[in-house]
């Protein structure tokens, strides 16, 4: 009786632990192990040659391997920060607008907003690469109507990454708006009624009730937005190939280039480990900041 009491939980947990181990832990451990080796992705793991910290030294070295990695790292960070900083406030704004149940066509607006999230990235990439075309693109033509000269968009290292951020915001905003709407529906209307009786205006309602009670939703949104942004890949591979002048080379694209195209599995693994560590640090920081605010 005692044995079955202690044995059954482990028995119940074994399938889940096995699956997690096989599909998550083993690949992570393998990637970390490979990052200390010189290994061609076209050969077996047995052919991996131990090189210690050399791959990591190269990532921070002066030659092209290090320069390209650091640029990709910086580009990924900028892309992530800009995406999150734009998406979160915009999703709250759209959420508040769409959540107004009395406004006619609210459901239609909600559907239109979410539809951008459902469009396949290949279609988005094809359309946006034409929209951004410096000579024939509609965006520059529209800008010219209001007296703004042609912008280089994807053709300049100064604007290419930001152009991809705009594309990302356009595609993702609907999804995050839906999350915000879900959060808004959880806020009891009685709180707003009580605030109004106490003489609170709209701004006070927003900062005193809406925003604090949306904190958990926004925490979830920010974690998902960070993960999505860090994993950006398709627009880069489909539109810019990392150019011009490495300005849109992001980590996922760079790891693919190094690890698959050049078959440098050890170096690619070291880059993947750095990406994973950065992501862990960011996510932990977001949760720590959220917890600190809740404690206050």
């Amino acid at each position, binding site marked *: 009786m005692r044995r079955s009491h202690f044995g059954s939980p482990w028995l119940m947990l074994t399938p889940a632990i096995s699956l997690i181990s096989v599909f998550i832990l083993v690949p992570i451990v393998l990637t970390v192990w490979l990052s200390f080796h010189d290994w061609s992705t076209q050969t077996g793991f047995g052919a991996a040659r131990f090189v210690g910290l050399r791959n990591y030294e190269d990532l921070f070295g002066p*030659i092209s*391997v290090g320069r390209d990695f650091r640029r990709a790292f910086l580009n990924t960070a900028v892309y992530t920060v800009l995406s999150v900083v734009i998406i979160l406030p915009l999703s709250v704004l759209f959420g508040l607008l769409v959540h107004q149940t009395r406004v006619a066509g609210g459901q239609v607006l909600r559907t239109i907003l979410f539809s951008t999230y459902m469009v396949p990235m290949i279609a988005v990439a094809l359309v946006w690469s034409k929209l951004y075309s410096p*000579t024939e693109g509609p965006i520059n033509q529209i800008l010219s109507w209001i007296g703004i000269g042609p912008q280089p968009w994807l*053709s300049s290292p100064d604007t290419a990454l930001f152009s991809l951020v705009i594309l990302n915001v356009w595609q993702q905003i609907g999804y995050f708006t839906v999350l915000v709407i879900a959060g808004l529906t959880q806020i009891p209307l009685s709180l707003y009624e009580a605030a109004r009786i106490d003489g609170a205006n709209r701004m006070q309602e927003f900062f005193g009730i809406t925003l604090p009670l949306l904190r958990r939703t926004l925490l979830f949104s920010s974690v998902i937005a960070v993960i999505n942004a860090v994993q950006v890949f398709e627009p880069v591979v489909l539109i*810019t190939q990392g150019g011009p002048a490495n300005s849109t080379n992001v980590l996922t694209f760079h790891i693919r280039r190094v690890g*698959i195209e050049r078959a440098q599995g050890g170096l690619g693994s070291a880059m993947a480990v750095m990406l994973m560590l950065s992501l862990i640090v960011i996510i932990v920081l977001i949760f720590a900041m959220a917890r600190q605010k809740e404690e206050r």
Partner: protein
Amino acid sequence: MNAISRVWIAAAATMMPLTAYAQDVQLTYLTHWAPDTVALLEEAASAYSAEHPGVTISVRAVPFGDLLTTIRSGGTDGTTIASIYDLWLPALVKDGLVAPAPENVAKEVSDNWPAGIAAAASVDGAIYGIPNEVNVYALNYNKALFEEAGIAAPPKTWDELKDAAAKLTDLSAGQQGFGMINSWAAGVVHPFASLLVSNGGQLIADGKPLLDSKEALETFQLYETMIKEGYSVAAMGTADANTTGPYLDNFVSGKTGMIIMANWWESALKGGMGDDFDNIGTAPIPVGPSGDAPRSISYSWQTVVNAGATPAEQEAAWDFLVWLNGPESGKNGASAMADILQSMGILPSRNSDIEAYSDALNRPFLEGYVSTLADAQAFPIVLGGQEFSEALQQVIEQLQYGQITAEEAQANAQADAVSILERAAQ
């Protein structure tokens, strides 16, 4: 059962496995060609299958930017046949992804292709692929813009190139004199290398990078001058994953006076320009201050067979490729491959194909390329070549966008190349 019957039964038993295996062979062919060209390849494959009922061939196409990744991620389980850029061959051989050509195929290649082209399909003396296309770089210029600017002839020297670029540049009208491409490794590096060899320099010799030479510095300085003087606008030179984009758009729409590009762009230029294609002239690469004659860079493509394919698949694949590239499969003594290549304006490399297409190769656009081919240097094929090419691309693009000086570009390019080639050789 008499002796003759026994012999028949034995013979039939011997043939049975062969017949069965022949009927089971399914080949897959990976290419980066556009749908129209893929249709021609499929047509040729159907013709082969009609003659060899046991063999079916399906063609798979991916954009050029994804071709190497597709080959590598497929590994030994990938497509049976793949079309590859010659620069990739040493690394694919090192990783055991491509099969050496059987003796009869190797002899076919050695006997029927120019020695330089056959060498590009070889690693350590063994042939691994059947060459098909060869590409060379030349100066393309817009004759209508030249006439408007009062330029009588295409530039022969770098001084004339800069002078023509200055006359053709009208930034207020969004027009640049000389177009320099970015965002595509080979597209960036090949024109640079063409100018370098026309200035008497080399990228790599005997496995050692030579980007620290005076000739290389002068080439970097030419790029710097073009940008600083406004003759080239970097933002007008972007290419996309399909190697088209603003760089092509600006040239076909008359916003760029001159570019350095390979012959295979003929179909893209025709498609973009229509009747205005006649305005495009071809001339040798201008000679630099340290050069003595116009030279250029050439590179080739070839088809290889997957080392992981079964012996039956490999045998059928090589047989198909010999047929596809042989004089019996096409029109008027040309190979079916040459017919496909010529539909895109690409030069075939087999001796008999060049002969069969001698008239077509003399058309105005291609004539300039064919005449350049004799003095072209093959782009160096070394282990680590792709990484070397991508690293040099980044340095050149930084120079194009004014992020570094010519001297910094030279120092970075040489240091990168030394490190990459040393590591690859280990």
